């Protein structure tokens, strides 16, 4: 096994490290903790954070890439498979390997298309064949199917519920009990802990049922080449998360440095920076992105020797898409930060710092940047959902991720044409839109809570 660190993997782990370091820093300062405590008392915020973190878990597992060593050796040297797989693939190997011939509906035991089959009497019969993996254990599908599905779902849900209870008990014993926090749950009505508890149990039951069913059925059906749609949708999560987070990471240095510099120095610095962002924002963003992506495609096509594996190439394309999206979208945040800095630099404490002879870089980093961070944070969480949605649109337009990268956009794009079939193949589209809706909805709700907690214009009672 050879670990492979793709560019986006490195960026994701960098981001994770930054968040952890930030959290460590914030823990020490009560005034920085205050808005986060407000987030922590909101049921809506905590529940959406729980759902978001499940998505992130899948995305992180899917970012641990490696290549498997092949059994044969070349002159004593280990040879590695050209295929790059992730820890998530290893966990979901059942889903990945159980491929059918072509489409099959969710939970089906029969294939979508009729085939010629030889009967025992030597005649040729034209009928729907049984699937290779979905529901093979059923001897009589018409009689056993419903009972089996209900039984498997119930057993899975019970097992999941049990695990959920164990998990909550473990968390309670490890973290909460030590604080002497013995309030019974019924007494803390307006506490996110109750909502979190219920959500965790519901989710545990749901995942238990789904994973138990997924072991013997294709829960969301299969696509044109027979791949399990649930697997494809789960793999798409990483792409969505990468685009939503790394793009803002790219945006940040431009918006922060240029915006604060323009507002603080004014004069010709301000003029130049304003000119740059006026030019960039006057081009309709889709067109600018399309133009840049087209050019990036030409560059990548012209230099196949840069990439060791096809996964590396697709990954560089994904990263470039993030870069392009970031380079075209920093102008809005930059304008906000410029305005805020213009306001801040007239305040007494900045003028006092200037009078004491504190250098400009030091004033900017020590006095201005910490006081515009709430704007940056709000912009980051607010942009996330928009970027996840934009990925699907860009992939449809043809300027999105590499066609071999699994993403919501490529899923929708592939499934769109199947709506014309009769009976219609709706499950791939439904899966892609459903996953996207849950992710974006959770992100939007969380962003609202964060914005309310950090917005200084709102008065907070507690």
């Amino acid at each position: 096994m050879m670990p492979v660190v793709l560019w986006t993997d490195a960026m994701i782990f960098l981001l994770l490290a930054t968040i952890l370091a930030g959290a460590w820093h914030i823990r020490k300062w009560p005034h920085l903790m205050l808005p986060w405590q407000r987030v922590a008392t909101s049921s809506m915020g905590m529940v959406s954070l729980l759902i978001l973190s499940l998505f992130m878990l899948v995305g992180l597992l899917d970012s641990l890439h490696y290549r498997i060593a092949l059994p044969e050796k070349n002159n004593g040297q280990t040879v590695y498979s050209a295929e790059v797989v992730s820890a998530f693939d290893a966990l979901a190997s059942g889903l990945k390997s159980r491929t059918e011939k072509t489409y099959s509906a969710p939970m089906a035991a029969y294939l979508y298309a009729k085939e010629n089959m030889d009967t025992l009497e030597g005649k040729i019969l034209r009928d729907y064949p049984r699937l290779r993996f979905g529901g093979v254990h059923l001897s009589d599908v018409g009689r056993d199917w419903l009972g089996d599905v209900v039984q498997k779902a119930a057993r899975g849900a019970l097992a999941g519920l049990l695990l959920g209870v164990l998990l909550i008990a473990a968390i309670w014993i490890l973290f909460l009990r030590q604080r002497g926090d013995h309030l019974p749950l019924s007494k803390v009505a307006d506490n996110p802990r109750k909502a979190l508890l219920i959500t965790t149990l519901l989710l545990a039951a749901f995942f238990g049922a789904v994973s138990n069913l997924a072991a013997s059925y294709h829960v969301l059906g299969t696509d044109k080449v027979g791949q399990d749609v649930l697997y494809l949708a789960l793999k798409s999560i990483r792409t969505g998360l990468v685009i939503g987070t790394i793009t803002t990471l790219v945006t940040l240095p431009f918006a922060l440095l240029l915006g604060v510099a323009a507002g603080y120095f004014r004069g010709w610095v301000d003029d130049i920076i304003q000119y740059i962002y006026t030019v960039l924002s006057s081009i309709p963003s889709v067109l600018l992105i399309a133009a840049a992506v087209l050019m990036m495609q030409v560059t990548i096509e012209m230099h196949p020797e840069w990439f060791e594996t096809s996964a590396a190439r697709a990954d560089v394309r994904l990263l470039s898409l993030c870069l392009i999206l970031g380079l075209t979208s920093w102008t809005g945040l930059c304008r906000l930060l410029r305005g805020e800095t213009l306001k801040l630099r007239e305040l007494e404490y900045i003028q006092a710092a200037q009078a004491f002879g504190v250098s400009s870089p030091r004033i900017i980093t020590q006095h201005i940047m910490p006081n515009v961070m709430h704007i940056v944070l709000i912009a980051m969480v607010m942009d996330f959902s928009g970027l996840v949605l934009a990925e699907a649109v860009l992939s449809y337009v043809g300027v999105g991720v590499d066609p071999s990268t699994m993403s919501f956009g490529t899923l929708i794009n592939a499934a769109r044409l199947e709506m014309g079939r009769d009976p219609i193949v709706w499950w791939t589209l439904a899966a892609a839109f459903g996953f996207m809706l849950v992710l974006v909805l959770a992100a939007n709700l969380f962003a609202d809570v964060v914005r309310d907690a950090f917005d200084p214009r709102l008065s907070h009672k507690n």
Partner: protein
Amino acid sequence: MIAYLIRRILYAFPVLVGVNLLTFALFFVVNTPDDMARMQLGMKRVTPEAIEKWKQQQGYDKPLMLNTQAAGMSKISDTVFFEKSVRMFAFDFGYANDGRNIAREIQTRMLPSLAIALPTFVVGLLLYITFALFMTLFRGTALDTLGVTLCVFLMSVSGLFYIIGGQFLAGKLWHWVPISGYVGGTDSIKFILLPVLIGVVGGIGASGRWYRTIFLEEISKDYVRTARAKGLSELRVLFGHVLKNAMIPILTGVVVVIPLLFMGSLLTESFFGIPGLGSYTIDAINAQDFGVVRAMVFLGSVLYIVGLVLTDISYTLVDPRVRLQ
């Protein structure tokens, strides 16, 4: 005001020059014309002659910025930069890969784009503002919460879903209207209906919430309290006072996009097969027709700048205190 307008238009020039330089750098410096030729003609087994021929057809065989072999003014004018970028200022966009004149194509395709975009814009604007005003009227009640929840939900749904779902429901299940296509004249109404409806529904979430925020900000101001103290009904306060005063933030977001309506919508037009500028752009992107993409980038930024000037003018119409000098 005239002097102001002239100054604004003069200020627009450096911005357009910047856009022009940026697109030029993007299309000709990042990748050489040779790369593009190879991309167009197929990656492998392309003879150098074929590349030369393609470049000559496209007019890419000249030096990029400075022609050292030519004399006098044509040192500058006989270059790719002059031919492809500077000429855009005269709206001379050259020819597409299929040999058609891009400027003429844009003229004929503007009308179908506008036929979809304008009704969507007008109906949407009226609907969103009314919806937001009603949410503001019932603020703090269950109706308001319901409205906001609906908005958050609607804005979390992908725009592609509205189009695909709407097309499926209206076209396949209920057989109301044709799924896609377009004809000119009065017959076009049945082709326009569905895209407009979907466009309006798709915008409710984000826009409704945005207008609600604007109105809520206005409603906490002193003049509203004064109006209520005079004994005006809440409806009159909202529609008579709050709406009028909220016009400035509304116009800031709305007027900018009016000229861009000409560009049409990429997604809607390509899904519904409408021969407008949006589908023209998408086709050009898919066929990697760089000339058309360049023309659309330039046109888009010109229209955006026109929109900014229009925004300033619109302020003077709704707020007598604003004077452009």
